[in-house]
């Protein structure tokens, strides 16, 4: 992003770049940068908090008065990820004992997903490669991988990382409706990875692929983290 700042300034556009990774802001040194110590994914800080967002913008736009660059300022308020907080989100009881637990769970979350989409839209949920109707089948494909089926034979309906994004997006969007509040950053991700059957299944599939010597590009981006 800071690269674009350099390109745009050279073309006669004044720029202000926001960023939440201090080393990157300092290293690429955009002509005007505002480092904001916020969680990744929330560069304006707080969703649904216009006053806070305006404070960020005000400081960013003030940098346009500087006479030369590069200049790097820091927003005075930090937002910490409370690493001990995982979304408290009720999961539905088992419905179909014959289904894989993760598949059963994914099916049961559909009403929550639909309620969240009705309220917020489907901005970060499904649809990159898998629509909501096909999420349970995609989950089942990763369950097969976790059980030892070679990934190319498991029926994963697209590039595995992209399919996994849709599955995570489906769960995290459903969680917005089940929690009925705006979670802090990473709270729903921790819930998905650690508290759900599908999170555990995806983690097991990833481990199975790594152990089998499959290319890192296939398994590394199946879920957040290294």
């Amino acid at each position: 992003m800071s690269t674009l700042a350099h390109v745009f300034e050279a073309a006669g556009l004044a720029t202000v770049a926001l960023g939440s990774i201090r080393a990157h802001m300092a290293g690429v040194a955009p002509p005007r940068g505002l480092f904001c110590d916020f969680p990744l994914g929330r560069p304006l800080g707080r969703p649904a908090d216009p006053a806070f967002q305006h404070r960020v913008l005000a400081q960013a736009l003030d940098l346009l008065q500087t006479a030369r660059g590069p200049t790097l300022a820091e927003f005075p308020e930090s937002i910490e990820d409370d690493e001990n907080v995982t979304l408290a989100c009720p999961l539905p009881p088992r419905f179909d004992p014959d289904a894989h637990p993760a598949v059963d769970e994914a099916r049961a979350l559909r009403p929550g997903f639909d309620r969240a989409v009705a309220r917020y839209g489907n901005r970060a949920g499904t649809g990159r490669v898998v629509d909501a109707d096909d999420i349970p089948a995609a989950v089942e494909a990763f369950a097969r991988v976790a059980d030892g089926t070679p990934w190319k034979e498991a029926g994963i309906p697209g590039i595995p990382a992209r399919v996994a994004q849709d599955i995570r997006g489906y769960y995290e969007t459903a969680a917005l409706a089940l929690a009925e509040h705006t979670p802090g950053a990473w709270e729903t991700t921790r819930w998905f990875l650690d508290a759900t059957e599908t999170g555990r299944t995806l983690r097991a599939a990833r481990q199975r692929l790594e152990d089998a010597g499959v290319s890192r590009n296939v398994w590394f981006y199946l879920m957040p983290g290294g």
Partner: protein
Amino acid sequence: MTDRQAKALTADLELPTFDATAFTIPPPLGTATVAIVTTASLHHPDQDDFAPTDTSFRILDPARRDLQLGHWSPNFDATGFAVDVNVVFPIDRLQELADTGRIGAVAPHHLAFAGNQFELTQIRLDSGPAAAKLLRADGVDVVLLTPV
């Protein structure tokens, strides 16, 4: 998974360097036209999704809120954007600034690139300058750059 862990994953990335820092002095903010350019890989549903290592950009309509997050990295929180586009793409805040006269105008188009790029030559030499040309043609004076 924590934000600290996600940021640690970026520690070894090789960063581009620039021999000189181009610098444009904008007109007074109260007369300036402002655009948002984000590297969050946003697109409208009827536009193409971003491919891996996609160096092109999408043109975003400021009147629309049907935006989708097409970024390939799993290492950021997406729920903030799911709830409020403005936490990544502060289009409503920009319009409020225009309404109060703090900025001159909101640009007629905004742009989205894909972040998480490791080879930046195309962006530096091709799509970046093309984006700048489009923004200049729209009368844009100031660009707010946002990541995800």
